[in-house]
């Protein structure tokens, strides 16, 4: 069947790969299978469970790519849920960022002496923000029958 959703297919493929790669690298780093200095900790924090969560989001996007490539419109469902999950995890890291900011700059809490805003910006946060921009652009595509 003809694929009528080429732009969405490209998006799910790109986002799927990014999430899967970043998630996997975080897991490998968290498990100690990659050296600590392999890409800065700020850009790629070692995190097993967090990395697995990102890999799951990546898998959702890639499932969408597969559905689109079969000509099925149902890939839209995976693209939509992928974006929703990206936003949820982005929001989670945004709230964590705010909490860390308060601890470091307002309460001067123990353990936050070294904290900088750059250290708080994690991949899930900026990918979530980018996904929000994508969703805003494609909102009409997803708002169909509510």
């Amino acid at each position, binding site marked *: 069947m003809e694929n009528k959703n080429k732009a969405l297919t490209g998006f799910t493929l790109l986002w799927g790969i990014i999430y899967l790669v970043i998630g996997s690298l975080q897991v490998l780093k968290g498990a100690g299978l990659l050296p600590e200095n392999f890409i800065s900790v700020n850009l790629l924090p070692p995190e097993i*469970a967090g990395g697995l969560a990102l890999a799951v989001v990546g898998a959702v996007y890639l499932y969408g790519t597969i559905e689109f490539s079969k000509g099925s419109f*149902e890939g839209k*469902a995976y693209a939509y*849920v992928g974006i929703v999950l990206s936003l949820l995890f982005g929001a989670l890291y945004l*709230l964590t960022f705010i909490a*860390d900011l308060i601890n470091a700059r307002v309460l001067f809490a123990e353990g936050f002496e070294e904290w900088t805003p750059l250290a708080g910006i994690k991949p899930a946060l900026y990918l979530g923000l980018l996904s929000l921009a994508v969703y805003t652009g494609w909102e009409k595509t997803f708002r169909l029958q*509510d």
Partner: protein
Amino acid sequence: MVENKIRVALTGNPNVGKTTVFNAITGSRQKVGNWPGVTVEKKTGIKEYGGRILEIVDLPGTYSLTAYSADEVVARDYILEEKPDVVIQVLDSTNLERNLYLTTQLLEIGTNLILALNMSDLAERKGEDVNIPVLEKLLGISLIRTTANEGKGINELLDEIILRSGSASSFPNKIEYNKKIEDEIRQLERILAEDEALMTRYPSRWLSIKLLEGDENAHSKLSSSNVQFKVNKFLSNLISEEYEAEMADKRYEFISRVLPQVSKGRVERMSSSDMIDKVLTSRYLGIPIFLALMWGMFELTFTFATPFMELIDMFFGSLAKIVAVNIDSPWLSSLLGDGIIAGVGSVMLFVPNIFILFFLLALLEDSGYLARAAFIMDRLMYSMGIQGKSFIPMLMGFGCSVPAVMATRTLEDRADRLITMMVTPFMSCGARMPVYVLLAGTFFGKQAGSVIFGIYVLGIIVAIVSAKLFRSIIFKGKPSSFIMELPPYHSPSAGNSFKYMMNQGSLYLKRVGTVIVGGVVVIWLLAYFPQGVEYGSAESYIGSLGKLIEPLVAPIGFDWKIAISLIFGFLAKEVVIGSLGTLYGTGADEGMLSSALVADPIFTPAVALGLMVFTLLYVPCIGAVAVIKKESGSWKWMLFAAAYSTAMAWIMAFVTVKIGNIIFA
């Protein structure tokens, strides 16, 4: 005249307008009674049409023909045993996917089937245009569009009944299962063919499929057959639950191939709720997404609470200083500082975590996701011996075990209920959270959220494995089937979730004010006396008691202070931390208690992890134990729950500490 009579069975899912079709056909000529032996309503009606007499039997509404409920058994047995000339399935045109599942099963039986596509006016208004000729071609059967409440399409349906009454079923697209299943179906068909009488009564492919699915009603049909022994022998090495799930998937796969070809307008207009459901209940992605969301919830609970915890910590720290400076009496200063402020303060510290967790759980429930969680877990849980419905009390257990155990009342089957009651306390309730937050925060730093998530997952795993064990040894048999209507997704209300959080949180605060204060005062008394000994030392009363029970936990790596904390944790799990705060005499300062734990050589990361595991699994709090007694109606089950969970806790903590010692060495 008998040859003039056509016997017609009317079937379909509940609420598809079946009774309206029945009334539209039969008018006032109906009789209502019960099927012999069961209290399932039986409606029959007569209609004279085109020179023929139509005897219409309205079968009970059913989602599938797998014989679990009395309704399903009646519907299926009527079609199988009475062999009506024509079967009409009434479908809800606005919900074809679910309705076609029953169609695939009717076709598998080999019925002479006509589909009445009801509520077609509603579907048209929603822009759902079903291509009838294509669907007829794909299924090999006739379809009539009806709007029964207006009488539209009824005469066409009657014409079709007369036309089809003499012909046989000609479903061209039989559902192909995978090669292994198809081979096994063929082998079973060969065995069944040895009983000719049986084969004249039932279609061999259908009977083979049902036997592979482990359908007990189908097994009973072999009770007087000479092939029963051979069939049982053949099936003895197969796991029927796997076949049942695989075959259900294939039927849905078939439907999902058919629908886009006949109903493009409909399926391309999926609502957001449909889109979310499609992915979140997916066979492969459903459980990973569920786990990722659960992790997110615990990570947020841990990290977002830290500034609030810091503020509470500062407050109690200042309070302890004020007491130390202004109260001269050593015993009163110790009671207030080491006892009440240290004990209660160390528990109060975790109020933000508890509140955030309750708020997030309420958001998930309000959005409709928790109902899906039960649906997602159903297959896994069924294979482990409990039904998906049990997951709802288990999820409630994340809040508090007491209402969760009470919620097992919703399970009809006693065995399901008792199993669920025994395993629900393994779900980590909010009261255990302070123990995890303190120990994970102290010993695992940035990985604390993930460690806490792991402990919660361990609780789910132990619950499910225990259920399997109980089902295999104590409650032999199969769990009941689980069918639930999933509510549509909607944006959760922050206001409602906030109210829920406040209600549950205030209950927690009440516990802090009563049980926990009482507990820490008792601990302080035992730690302060006899006069003249060092506070909380091995020479104090509590030290002597601790030393007495220390040998029981020493193999795990725990000392007498931990043993005492666990004993008092039976009052309420929060008291474990309150006790440690009191016994270490660190005041309410979380930082000081953390430092004291790190400085104590007995506390290694492995022991901390072992203590979290023990706290998760050992005997639930006194409130939960009392409710288990009340709900099971038996001291025996209450004692069994207490003994089993404590034994499980000991073993799992022992294994955790041993493995932890190797990993963290």
